[in-house]
């Protein structure tokens, strides 16, 4: 059974064809170089207009690369939130049109749920497991008991981890997105050179990264001569430490020793290597998606959509996207 996934929740326009929720047949994201070259190098940032320009070429490309026709598609899975509302609208309206024209059923998928599903495209973790979704817009911990069955264990109270990366990169004079740059220059710095505070909200699995960002800002103001590599490495060590501390706490609290990472920040090399070490020492079975499935993509949306389609939970034409949409809530 083939599902067409569509995601326009943020900067990238993405479409994918996935078989039975598990096997990627095609996976197209607008930031990929070949798409850039073909369609004039437009990267959707904030403007939904750029999603409008890219949605047809990207969906067509996904269908073409899968070597299928629209009539081979059993259902369309589309991200209905959370994300930029104008961007989400493009994907949802496009999915509705396709659904109407081809009489193909449509299902709505939460973007965060999609991220958790990335792992099912490559591995088969047993339920239950602890999942961390960590990206530019989100930092949340879940207990996952089955497909579609999530319990939020904790979330950020202020900035997302990826957002802290972007903001720190900017104050160090680097461009957006900041995660990959901080990750790269951190390798040349000493992570123990500056002791930035690692927020620890006691008795809670919530995160907080705003104070850390402010500490870095204050430090840079007081020590303009210090090495950027050391600041970056020390900042990164504080972020990764905070993420891993809460994962380990969640594993302990829930008595579950399986952990799935997902979201753009799970592509961070320091987080991956430190978490692997921690998993070894704590006896945790760790599941890490490949780098291209950590960042936004539509294959993960198609995977999550497959299970809703099988359960018969379809969306109708009244589907409205929501910028703020906690996992488990219908838009």
């Amino acid at each position, binding site marked *: 059974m083939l599902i067409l996934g569509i995601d326009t929740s943020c900067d990238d326009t993405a479409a994918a064809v996935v078989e039975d929720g598990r096997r990627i047949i095609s996976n197209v994201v607008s930031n990929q170089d070949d798409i850039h070259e073909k369609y004039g190098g437009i990267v959707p940032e*904030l403007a*939904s207009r750029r999603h409008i320009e890219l949605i047809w070429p990207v969906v067509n490309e996904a269908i073409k690369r899968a070597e299928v026709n629209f009539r081979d598609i059993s259902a369309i899975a589309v991200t209905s939130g959370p994300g930029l509302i104008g961007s989400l609208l493009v994907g949802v309206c496009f999915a509705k049109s396709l659904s109407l024209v081809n009489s193909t059923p449509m299902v709505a998928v939460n973007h965060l749920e999609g991220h958790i599903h990335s792992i099912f495209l490559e591995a088969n973790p047993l339920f239950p497991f602890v999942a961390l979704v960590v990206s530019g817009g989100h930092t949340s911990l879940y207990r996952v008991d089955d497909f579609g069955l999530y319990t939020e264990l904790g979330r950020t109270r202020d900035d997302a981890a990826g*957002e802290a990366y972007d903001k720190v990169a900017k*104050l160090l004079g680097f461009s957006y997105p900041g995660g990959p740059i901080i990750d790269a220059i951190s390798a040349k710095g000493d992570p123990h050179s500056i002791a930035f505070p690692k927020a620890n909200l006691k008795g809670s699995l*919530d995160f907080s990264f705003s104070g850390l960002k402010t500490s870095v800002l204050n430090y840079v103001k007081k020590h303009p001569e210090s090495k950027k590599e050391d600041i970056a490495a020390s900042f990164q060590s504080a972020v990764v430490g905070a993420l891993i501390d809460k994962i380990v706490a969640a594993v302990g609290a829930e008595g579950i020793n399986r952990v799935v990472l997902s979201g753009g920040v799970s592509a961070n090399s320091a987080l991956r290597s430190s978490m692997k070490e921690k998993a070894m020492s704590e006896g945790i079975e760790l599941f890490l998606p490949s780098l291209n499935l950590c960042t936004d993509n539509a294959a993960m949306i198609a995977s999550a959509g497959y299970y809703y389609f099988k359960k018969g939970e379809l969306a109708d034409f009244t589907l409205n996207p929501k*910028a703020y949409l906690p996992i488990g809530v219908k838009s």
Partner: protein
Amino acid sequence: MKLLSRSEAETREIGRKLGEKLKSGDVVCLYGELGSGKTTMVQGIASAFGISERDITSASFTIIAEYDAGTPFYHIDLYRVTPGEVPELGLQEYLGSAGISVIEWAERAEGEIPDNSIRVSLNHKEEHSREIEIKGIRINRDA
């Protein structure tokens, strides 16, 4: 009016007092550098509308977060928006509505901000204290 906040909790409390004075259609602009307490202030303002502090997180990524609190509550964060992109956001749909809009980094969209907006500037004093200047509305801190 100028107020001194000595902690995040005090900033949140000033926000709540401000929120209680707001009425349908009001626009609150927040100015201040990274880490000055803008999102904390939004948490306080939102709490006056029954929105949980935990539900308000940074909106830098999604730019506009909408909450249904009887009156619609719009948390807008223009941090990653360039002035050229502002017209594409459709801000007037929010600012001209009956909802409450609170805008972080409002200086990025100055041309679109109504003249009668409430303006709040947050400035670092020391590590934990902030000077908060409020224009366009009076709040009673002791009430």
